[in-house]
C-alpha cells in the first residue's frame, strides 16, 4: 500500500517503526521530546524516557556519547537539528566515530544514525544553513545520506538504523513539507543505489538532495527547447553509485553536477573527479559544477537565492555544454 506523506512524516514513520521493531534503538538530542522540526513528534509519549530523551546543549558530548552508547550495544539515533552543529561536535565525529572501527582492528561496530537539517533557503543565515556533508565524505568512515523524496527518506533512515555503521541522515531544510508517495510498512532503500528521476539523452544532471527539485524543473524547461536531460539523484553520497552515473554519462556525453554545498572540495568536485577519471572518453565537453560559491550563507532571501543553485543556472550550464557540442560538430 502506498500513501501520500510529507517528508517529515515519513521520517517520523521510520522512527516509530524501527523503535517498535528493536528495543535497542535509543534516540536523544536537543529538544527531541517536543521535536521542533516535527520528525520526532509523538515518540516520547509513546516510547518514554528510556528510549528518547532531551539532552543539554552539548554537541561534543552528544556525538561522543553516541560512540560509547553504540559500543555498549545500542542502536543510537541522535538529532543534531542543523548540520552546522556537526562542527561543535566534530571531535567525536572526525576522530572517534569515523575511525574507531579501524583503530580497534574491527572490534567495534558503531550503529549510529545522526539526523540533521541542512541547507539554505529559509533565511536562517550563515550558522544554520550549511550543507555540511563534504567534510563527512572526506572522513572515510561515515555513510552520508541525502534523500530528496519522502519515500527515500523513510527507506534510507530505516536502512541506517538497522545498519552497523555510522550514518548521517540529512534532511533538506524547508523540504519537510515535501509530499510524495511512500510505501507503507517495510520499505528499505539500500545505500549506494542512485535513482534516475528523469531519462534523457543529451545531458546528465546529477543533483544532490534539495537540488533534485530545481534540476527536474530545469529538465522540463530544457525539454521545451528540445534538449533531453537525464536527472540522477544519488540518494547516498557515501557509498556513491558510480556505475549509474558513469552509464548515464556514457549515454549523454555531458555532465552537470548540482550541489548546494560550497564548491571547494565539495561533493560536486568529488563526483566530477570520478567522471573525469573514469569516463573521460565519453565526455564531449567539460564537466560543470553548479554549487553555492565559497561564501557564508547570507541572510537576505534575495541574497540566498543569488548564491544557492537554482533552475536558471542549471539550464544555462546544460545549454552551454549542449551548445558547445553542437558548435564542435558543426
Amino acid at each position, binding site marked *: 500500500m502506498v500513501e501520500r506523506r510529507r517528508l517529515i512524516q515519513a521520517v517520523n514513520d521510520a522512527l516509530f517503526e524501527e523503535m517498535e521493531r528493536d528495543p535497542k534503538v*535509543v534516540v536523544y538530542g536537543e529538544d527531541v521530546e517536543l521535536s521542533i522540526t516535527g520528525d520526532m513528534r509523538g515518540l516520547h509519549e509513546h516510547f518514554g524516557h*528510556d528510549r528518547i530523551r532531551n539532552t543539554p546543549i552539548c554537541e561534543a558530548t552528544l556525538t*561522543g556519547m553516541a560512540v*560509547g552508547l553504540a559500543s*555498549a550495544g545500542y542502536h543510537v539515533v541522535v538529532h543534531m537539528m542543523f548540520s552546522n552543529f556537526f562542527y561543535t561536535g566534530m571531535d567525536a565525529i572526525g576522530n572517534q566515530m569515523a575511525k574507531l572501527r579501524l583503530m*580497534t582492528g574491527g*572490534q567495534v561496530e558503531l550503529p549510529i544514525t545522526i539526523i540533521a537539517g541542512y541547507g539554505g533557503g529559509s533565511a536562517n543565515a550563515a550558522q544554520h544553513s550549511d550543507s555540511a556533508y563534504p567534510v563527512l565524505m572526506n572522513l572515510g568512515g561515515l555513510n552520508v545520506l541525502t534523500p530528496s523524496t519522502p519515500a527515500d527518506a523513510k527507506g534510507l533512515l530505516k536502512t541506517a538504523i538497522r545498519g552497523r555503521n555510522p550514518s548521517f541522515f540529512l534532511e533538506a531544510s524547508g523540504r519537510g513539507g515535501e509530499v510524495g508517495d511512500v510505501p507503507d510498512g517495510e520499505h528499505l532503500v539500500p545505500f549506494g543505489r542512485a535513482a534516475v528521476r528523469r531519462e534523457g539523452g543529451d545531458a546528465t544532471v546529477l543533483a544532490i538532495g534539495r537540488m533534485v527539485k530545481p534540476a527536474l524543473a530545469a529538465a522540463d524547461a530544457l525539454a521545451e527547447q528540445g534538449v533531453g536531460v537525464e536527472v540522477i539523484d544519488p540518494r547516498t553520497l557515501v557509498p556513491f553509485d558510480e556505475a549509474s552515473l558513469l552509464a548515464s554519462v556514457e549515454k549523454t556525453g555531458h555532465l552537470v553536477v548540482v550541489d548546494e554545498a560550497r564548491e571547494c572540495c565539495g561533493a560536486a568536485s568529488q563526483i566530477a573527479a570520478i567522471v573525469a577519471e573514469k569516463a573521460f572518453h565519453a565526455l564531449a565537453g567539460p564537466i560543470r559544477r553548479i554549487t553555492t560559491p565559497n561564501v557564508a550563507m547570507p541572510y537576505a532571501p534575495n541574497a540566498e537565492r543569488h548564491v544557492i543553485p537554482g533552475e536558471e543556472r542549471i539550464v544555462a550550464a546544460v545549454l552551454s555544454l549542449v551548445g558547445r557540442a553542437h558548435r564542435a560538430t558543426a
Partner: protein
Amino acid sequence: MATTVIDRRTEQAGLRSGPSPAELLELYERMLLVRRVEERLRDDSAAGKLPGAVHLYIGEEAVAVGVCAHLGDRDYVTSTHRGHGHFLAKGGDVRAMMAEIWAKEEGICRGMGGSMHVADVSKGILGANGIVGAGLAIAAGAAFGTKLDGDGKVTACFFGDGASNQGVLMETLNLSTLWELPLVFVCENNTFSEFTPSREVTAGRIADRARAFGMPTAEVDGNDVTAVWQAAAGAVARARSGGGPSFIEAHTYRIQGHFEAEAFVLSGGRYREDAEIAAWTQEDKDPVLRCRATLLASGAADVLHAIEARVLAQVDDAVRFAEAGTPADPALAESLMFVRDEG
C-alpha cells in the same frame, strides 16, 4: 600531597577499609607488570624498534591498578593517550598489547591502532584515545547504556589534568549528574599538560569542578595504591548500586616525558628540573617502590621475588611474541572502515 581527602559520601559507600594482604600482593604484581612492560617499551623505543610514539605511564601505575581492581570484564573503561596501564590493569593481554605496539597482525587491534589506541572491547576496554578528553563523552555514552541495561555495570573514565581543561569535562559532569549515570571520573593529575606544567594552564582545583555539580568527590594520593583502591571502592560501589557518578582526583607525577623521544622535539627546551623527576623516583614517592616497601615490612620477601621473576618472564615472552609476529595486513586499512552490510 600525602594527605587523602575523601568526601564523606564516598567514604560511606566504601565497603572495606583497604585491600586484604592477598589483594595488595595482586595490586603490586599488576603495578609491576605495567612498570616492567613500559620500561621495555621505553628501551625499545629508544633503540628505534617501535614504529610510533609511545606515551608512558611510569609513576602513575597505582591509579589504574587501584581503580580497575574493582572492575570486571563486563564493566567499561575509557583511557587516554597514556593508556598501557589502563589496558593491563583492566585485564588486557600483555602479548596482544605488545604485538599491537610492534605493529603486528597478532596485535589486539591487528596493528591498525598502535600504542595510542590499544583496546579490547571484549574486556570492556573501549580504547586508549589520542584526543585529550575524548574518553569523557564516550564513557558517558557507555554508562548511559549500562544504566539502560540496569544490571549494575560500571564505567570508569580515566583522563588527566590536561583533559580537565577541555569543555567536554563540564558537559559530561553536568549530564552524568543529571542522568545519574553509573560513571566514575578518574582524573590522573600528573602535573603536566603535555610539555607545560599544569599549574600554568589550570585555574582552581580540578576536583572543585566536580564539587560544583554536587558530585561526591575524593582527592587522593595517586601514588598510594591503597588510597586509590579505597576511594575507588566507594565510587564503584555507589555507581553499581544506582547512586550515580563520582569523581576521584588522583595526585600523581609523570616520570617520563610526554612521549618517548621528546628530547628530540624539545631540542634542548626544558619544562621541569631533573631534581624534581629524581625525587619522584624515590622509595617514598614511587608507587611501585612504596607498595613494595609496605609488603616487605609485612615480611613478604620471598613472594615478592617470585612475583618479580614471573613478571619479567611475562614481559620477555610478550616481546618475543611481538617480535616474531606477522607484519600487519595493509589491506585491513580498506576492509575495516565499514561493516559491510548495507545496500
